[in-house]
């Protein structure tokens, strides 16, 4: 039989469908929006392409002077820096609790904790709007029981972002929890047995066996969480529309408004690339830190 393909080219043929899909649906659009970022493509130009101007780096220069962009950048970092570690800590805590030999009804808890992840955010947002309601909300009811003044969670400029963070952490920790549980279950039992023989207490076991063995899982979880949280959009879009006083305006929400509400595609594309660059840098920094550690 004549061999039509060498080993390498055969592999390439098998990969071709996937590669071409990535090329058509990823690389071309990304390249196109990179180009759009250097034009002023807007509602006039969408109607008549002769009205597009090439503006060079003007979109990026305008971004640097745009107070709303800086506000959105600040809000996004605020969200990521507070919510990501919190979310990872909560998922790890839940995973440890559910992996413990003492825990009962494990499947029920696992299901309950995972439920928010698979529930659509719109439904969740409606419920949380009630929870956060300044007059009838359950959180303010409990605050009242211990004698604290009610807080207008979503209406107060200082409390809106913490409220969004709380909701986002609650919605997302179940996903990371499942990954952590898988990580915990892959730690061989004999390591703990050895630790016990050496006389290690619970905390020492956690610090010296569990955490190091979980390091690859933690790296994966933190990168995925960071990337996901930098793209904060649906929570403020549904709950606050970026308000009050733009305190919950995230980069992606700003990008969406500029691009798809006001049709400033060029400006919007520039925002997208700034976000891409931030996430890219964040991922590399995390990988570097992990390799050192």
């Amino acid at each position, binding site marked *: 039989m004549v061999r039509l393909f060498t080993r390498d080219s055969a592999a390439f043929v098998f990969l071709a469908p996937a590669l071409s899909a990535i090329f058509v649906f990823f690389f071309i659009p990304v390249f196109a929006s990179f180009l759009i970022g250097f034009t*002023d493509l*807007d*509602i*006039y130009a969408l109607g008549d392409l002769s*009205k597009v*101007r090439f503006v060079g780096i003007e979109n990026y220069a305008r971004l640097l002077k745009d107070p709303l962009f800086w506000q959105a950048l600040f809000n996004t970092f605020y969200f990521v820096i507070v919510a990501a570690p919190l979310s990872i800590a909560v998922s790890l805590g839940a995973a440890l609790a559910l992996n413990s030999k003492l825990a009962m009804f494990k499947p029920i808890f696992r299901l309950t904790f995972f439920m928010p992840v698979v529930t659509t955010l719109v439904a969740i947002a409606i419920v949380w*709007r009630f929870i*956060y*309601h*300044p*007059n009838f909300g359950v959180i303010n009811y409990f605050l009242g029981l211990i004698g604290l003044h009610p807080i*207008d*969670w*979503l*209406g*107060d*400029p200082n409390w809106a972002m913490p409220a969004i963070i709380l909701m986002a952490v609650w919605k997302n920790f179940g996903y990371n929890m499942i990954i952590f549980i898988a990580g915990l279950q892959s730690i061989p039992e004999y390591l703990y047995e050895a630790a016990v023989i050496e006389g290690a207490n619970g905390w020492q076991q956690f610090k010296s066996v569990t955490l190091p063995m979980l390091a690859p899982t933690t790296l994966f979880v933190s990168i995925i969480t960071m990337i996901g949280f930098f793209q904060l959009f649906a929570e403020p879009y549904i709950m606050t*529309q970026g*308000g*009050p*006083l*733009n305190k919950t305006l995230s980069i992606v929400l700003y990008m969406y*408004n500029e691009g798809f*509400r*006001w049709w400033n595609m060029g400006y919007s594309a520039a925002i997208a690339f700034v976000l891409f660059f931030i996430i890219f840098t964040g991922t590399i920094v995390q990988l570097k830190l992990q390799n050192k550690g």
Partner: protein
Amino acid sequence: MSRKIRRQYAQGECYPLYLPINEWAPFIIFGLQTGSELLKDNNTYGNFSSPAFKKAFAFLIDFYHQGLAPTGLTQVTNIYKAFSQGYIAMYISGPWNVPEFKKWMKGDLADQWMTAVLPSPDGETPGYSIAGGSSLVMNRYSKHKKEAWKFIEYLSTVSSQLTLFKLQSDLPAVKDAWNDTLLLKDPYMKAFYNQFRYVKSLPKIPEWEQIAFSKVQQYVEYAARGKMTVDEALKKLDEDVNKILEKRRWLLKQKVHGKD
């Protein structure tokens, strides 16, 4: 009048006027009433710092500062319920809201509310409002112009206009439709009929939506919450609007050069 209403309530949290900080329309309406030109130089520059608009803007912002209108959005989750419970006493809205208000103002409350034309700065009512609504347009490149025109004609008949009104309280644009008993008998529609003779139109440019929804609203909120003074807010508003209109200035310039 708002202060009078406030005194009548005396206790409990309530507001004479509901002026949502995410609605630009009242500010633009009152601005038109004081005779301000919203955009100047053929709609290429913002004109919100003009004394006329400033007067209207400051007048409405004062409602927030005096506690006559709520500054939060979360305080009123259901405007109809808030109205029927006396949490708010006045609300600026359109005819589309009348059926829903009727639903909530039941029993003893049924004859306790009414619609009214907008007040005007000189005390003579009615003051100007914006017509809102939308236009029927035929595309220049349409292949079915005849059919489109027929459809527009059909929508403009008295009977279709009344059907639309019955379905969703869209006020008829055809004057003859107003002679129908359905409208004459509805006391809540009378104010809207009178208001119709006192309307001004908004700048007809594609950028208007962004100016109104994103910029006017943003600076209304900043001023209402006391983050900026009225002067600061309007100056920034003009700056932002001028940036938005940069493309329009360029396009108009191209046109002029093209003709030379």
